[in-house]
């Protein structure tokens, strides 16, 4: 699987380099504003929001690109490169899923640490700005009303978001594989696959929301992440089975 993983990494490298470049530019702009132009509050807010947006969009894009790569590998001639190798569908899809999981983990970890660093720098420089702190907390509450702003809770939140996104990507894999393998050439196959995706995403949400305990929010977030990972595993197994049995490239 290592060699498959190597080529999956290579296929997605361009997007990651672009994201890294954009993040570097935004980070430099943030640091310049923070240390050399501290009166420019608007610019500081803008660069902070920009960095946050890049982190969110970047993580989403990594997942979307993974689904698009799988789609190309099943529906264009470049799929021969993959399916003529002596590797089975479980290995092929496993490498894709692993690449996506690792990329999400690395991107999530990178953006989490960068965010932590920037917030620390921000408060060490402008620690007296209570309004800014309050604004940040309000923003966090927008994402999850119960979350407290400390490193552990943010880490739990980031883990839950990454695991849920990985599960969503794995659902998209299955929907695309069903469209390419079972519904190929049939009318409305894309629409049926989309409905399938929506239904399976709904089931994931329903399962995650079954949890209504008095436990701490961090615990609930970690359990939700666990449910998402198990769900992603089930999606992977079903997807690879369908691919193995029915996919023609």
């Amino acid at each position: 699987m290592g060699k498959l993983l190597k080529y999956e990494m290579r296929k997605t490298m361009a997007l990651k380099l672009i994201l890294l470049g954009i993040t570097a530019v935004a980070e430099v702009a943030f640091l310049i504003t923070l240390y050399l132009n501290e009166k420019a509050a608007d610019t500081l807010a803008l660069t902070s929001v920009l960095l946050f947006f890049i982190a969110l969009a970047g993580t989403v894009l990594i997942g979307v690109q993974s689904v698009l790569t799988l789609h190309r590998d099943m529906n264009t001639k470049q799929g021969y490169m993959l399916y003529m190798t002596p590797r089975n569908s479980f290995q092929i899809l496993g490498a894709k899923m692993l690449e996506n999981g690792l990329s999400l983990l690395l991107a999530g970890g990178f953006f989490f640490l960068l965010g932590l660093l920037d917030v620390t720098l921000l408060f060490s420089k402008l620690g007296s700005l209570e309004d800014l702190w309050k604004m940040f907390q309000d923003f966090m509450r927008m994402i999850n009303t119960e979350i407290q702003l400390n490193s552990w809770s943010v880490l739990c939140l980031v883990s839950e978001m990454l695991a849920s996104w990985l599960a969503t990507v794995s659902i998209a894999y299955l929907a695309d594989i069903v469209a390419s393998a079972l519904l190929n050439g049939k009318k409305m196959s894309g629409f049926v696959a989309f409905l399938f995706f929506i239904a399976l995403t709904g089931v994931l949400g329903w399962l995650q929301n079954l949890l209504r305990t008095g436990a701490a929010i961090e615990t609930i977030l970690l359990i939700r992440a666990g449910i998402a990972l198990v769900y992603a595993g089930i999606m992977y197994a079903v997807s690879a089975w369908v691919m193995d049995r029915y996919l023609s490239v």
Partner: protein
Amino acid sequence: MITSKDLTRKFGTKTAVDGVSLTLTPGHVYAMLGPNGSGKTTWMKMAAGLMKPTSGEVLFEGQPVGVESRRHVAYMSTEPYFYPWMTVKDVGAYYGDFFEDFSAEKYASLLREMELEEGMKTRTLSSGMMAKLKIAVTMARDARVYMLDEPFNGIDLLARDEIRQSILRESAEDKVLLLSSHLVEEMEAVCDTAIFIRQGKLIEVRNLEEMRETDHVSMADRYREIYGHTEG
């Protein structure tokens, strides 16, 4: 070595391959012949394990084609299929990573013969150069079965000679070579057995030497006899 049993593949209402039963044995170079849409490519893709049959099966040494057969079967598609970010060198590295029978030395030698440079980007190759690259990387494997779909497409006369030589070099007692092409005369110089397919059905499998001796016709003559009225 490769056997298809009552192999059928349908695309909606169209039947591309219709109940083809066929055995390819080692020591032969086969020409798979038929007009466009006769099912040659579809049969090859099923034999390569890339396409699932609607019914019937393809066996490699008695086992259904799949992961194990892909270790020993070298398939070359007629369409370009390399990743666009690859260079000629990357293509060789990729085959080297996945196929134990791939020889980097043989690949380098074939590239020299075909006048291809390792630093060339596959997305910038002309159709002729791409065809040469596909041949070079496929023939650099020491496979048990080679299936080349339209290997002479888009290639000039001199390059065709080189390709013909590299194909002939690989013919051996323990190997199967299967080629499909519209260039029937080109094929006659390389192949010893002809497989005629029409509208997805197997018409006949003929040993060329025997056909010349008994029927006094060449492969091209027989092709005209079978397809003349359908191709106009």
